[in-house]
């Protein structure tokens, strides 16, 4: 798809989110109701298939543009597994599968979980448990990364998540569900070799997605903060005239810009030899920035920002959750640290510049 058309698609998505992700629906989603109306609108616009190749019936968005779309999803705090669906659909199509309708989630979503595949006649059975799967109880399908007895990485598409698993939510009240997969049977064609991007698991891809969403939610938080600083008056002038308030927002802007740059880096390296490194940089930097930006945005808002009434918390509660999902900062920092220490001091510079 040309960059012009993808620009149009991004604008359309922005308008669509602004129109459909209303205050009322965010309140409902918070209360645990599935926002079917938003999903319908999003699906009608073809967004779940944004990252699926045109030949496979998708929009064929380039990875970098897809990542920009995910930022808009974060910015508008869309209370749906849209990012997860986009990623799962991309991977399943890349593996040669036919992408089903409806929301798709995926797992494992953290470092500790692993799923095994056992041969059972012509098909397979699964062995393992997935913790805190996004919308694991609502999504129509779950894309699971699993290894067979020979250690080969495969993707398995489960038609319906098993019922009766532990339902939890994150700080933003987004469902995070533990799925017990032991003994679930799969037909032959529901299991495919994992595409190269997903061979090592889904953690890196999930981290990339959350990093992009965090950049979007940070932008939203800053927008709220800047608007409020210019409108709210104390001591006879807008609080944005006070140097202390200005500096808080300037520091937050620095974090935001650095996080966005790191997330751009990861988007640009999609699929390259440096992809893992770049994603680790993005998730670590965005996760650190998320805390700082949320803190500043709340401080600027005073008590108003601590209310249900003011919408700031839809963005900041997501930031506080997303920074811990698919590996918190320390996990990714440690990975980077081990990689650069193993390579030695003189190898760092070529690693940074990619040459």
């Amino acid at each position: 798809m040309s960059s012009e058309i993808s620009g149009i698609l991004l604008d359309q998505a922005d308008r669509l989110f602004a129109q459909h992700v209303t205050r009322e629906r965010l309140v409902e989603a918070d209360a645990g109701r599935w926002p079917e109306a938003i999903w319908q609108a999003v699906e009608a616009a073809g967004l779940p298939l944004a990252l699926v190749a045109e030949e496979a019936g998708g929009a064929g968005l380039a990875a970098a543009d897809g990542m920009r779309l995910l930022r808009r999803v974060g910015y508008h705090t869309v209370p749906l597994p849209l990012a997860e669906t986009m990623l799962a659909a991309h991977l399943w199509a890349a593996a040669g599968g036919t992408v089903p309708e409806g929301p798709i989630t995926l797992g494992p979503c953290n470092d500790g979980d692993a799923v095994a595949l056992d041969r059972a006649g012509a098909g397979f059975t699964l062995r393992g448990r997935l913790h805190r799967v996004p919308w694991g109880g609502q999504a129509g399908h779950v894309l699971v990364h699993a290894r067979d007895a020979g250690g080969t990485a495969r993707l398995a598409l489960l038609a319906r998540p098993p019922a009766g698993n532990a339902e939890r939510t994150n700080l933003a009240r987004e469902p995070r569900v533990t799925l017990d997969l032991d003994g679930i049977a799969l037909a032959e064609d529901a299991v495919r070799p994992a595409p190269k991007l997903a061979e090592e698991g889904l953690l890196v891809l999930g981290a990339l997605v959350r990093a992009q969403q965090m950049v979007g939610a940070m932008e939203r938080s800053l927008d709220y903060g800047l608007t409020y600083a210019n409108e709210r008056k104390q001591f006879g002038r807008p609080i944005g005239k006070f140097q202390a308030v200005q500096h808080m927002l300037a520091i937050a802007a620095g974090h935001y810009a650095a996080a966005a740059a790191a997330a751009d880096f990861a988007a640009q390296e999609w699929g390259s030899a440096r992809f893992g490194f770049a994603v680790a940089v993005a998730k670590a930097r965005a996760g650190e920035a998320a805390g700082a930006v949320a803190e500043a945005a709340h401080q600027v808002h005073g008590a108003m920002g601590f209310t249900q009434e003011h919408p700031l918390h839809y963005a900041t509660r997501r930031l506080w959750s997303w920074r811990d999902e698919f590996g918190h900062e320390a996990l990714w920092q440690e990975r980077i640290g081990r990689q650069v220490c193993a390579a030695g001091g003189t190898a760092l510079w070529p690693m940074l510049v990619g040459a």
Partner: protein
Amino acid sequence: MQAFQFDTVTLPPEAEAMRRRVRAFLAEERAAGHLSGRGSWSAFDPEFSRRAGAAGFIGVTWPREFGGHAQSFLVRYVVTEEMLAAGAPCGAHWVADRQSGPQILRHGSEAAKRDILPRICAGECFFAIGMSEPDSGSDLAATRTRAVRTEGGWLINGSKIWTSRAHRAHYLIALVRTGEAGEDRHGGLTQFIVDLAQPGVTVRPIRNLAGGHEFNEVFFKDYFVADDRMVGKEGQGWSMVTSELAFERSGPDRFLSDYQLLAELIDRVGEAPGERQAVEIGRLVAHLAALRRMSTSIAGMIESGRSPGVEAALVKDVGTSFERDLPEVARRIVAVEPSVDDGEDGFAAALADVELHAPSFTIRGGTREILRGMIARGLGLR
């Protein structure tokens, strides 16, 4: 939030070709024992500058008729980042190449251009910056050093302070008062090229806390400067200084000052770091990778003709915060007592050097507080 878009820049093939040339040059310098490793852009080595000039690494973007190499800003960017990462002693030519030369090229007289620029490119002519005064630091508009008209030129009286390398440079560009400040306080300022070898100007050293002699006080007593050494027009000094500072702040020198310490830290920690060591080093590298992206993006903005003053202020603020963080992290994860004269432990010496210089990182080139004010204005506050 529309402000602060740091668009992705892909370095063109000629920039990567230049990277290979610079690395080959630096490998030779290292083999010849000219790179101590820890000098960066404040270490003054005229011989190194001459060789860098001869190799074509100074005045990279300037027109050929003035000795330059007519290449893009992205090519220049690669030269600077490779020099800094290698800890090359660029201090002699750095200011001339980064800001004085570009100012003269854009606003200088034909005579000044012909006389000075080719010598800068050859790595033979070095500049200092004459902005700060005893009563005019962050508040540059309070400049008091004055120039008054005389036959064929101007007479300058007053003094400058904190003038880095004025004792070794050939020239400085002085910001002086030639008229009334006016309502906005930005009027009446003009820039002149001052030849430090001429009578009427004296330089007195100021030692810094690390014991080094880097900056100075510069005194003017009826110093005569010819008309053709004026840079820009009379009274235009303010807007020129503002755009000059955007150049001064935009480069990788604002986050790579102590890069060598990071490389040494990694080697010191070794191949099998403890968990905490790995986490802390990984955090620093993540910060650095983001900064480098922002910095290349700024080079792209300059290349496309924009003047990214606010973006440069932001990168300098984030970059110098990183520079100050680095020694603090290093000392948390490696138990060593820093020592400037420990010839055996390179890490202890590097840490000592950086700790003693770190306070200046967030002051020189505009303090952190002034930068944050600029960022806030860029965000639409004020």
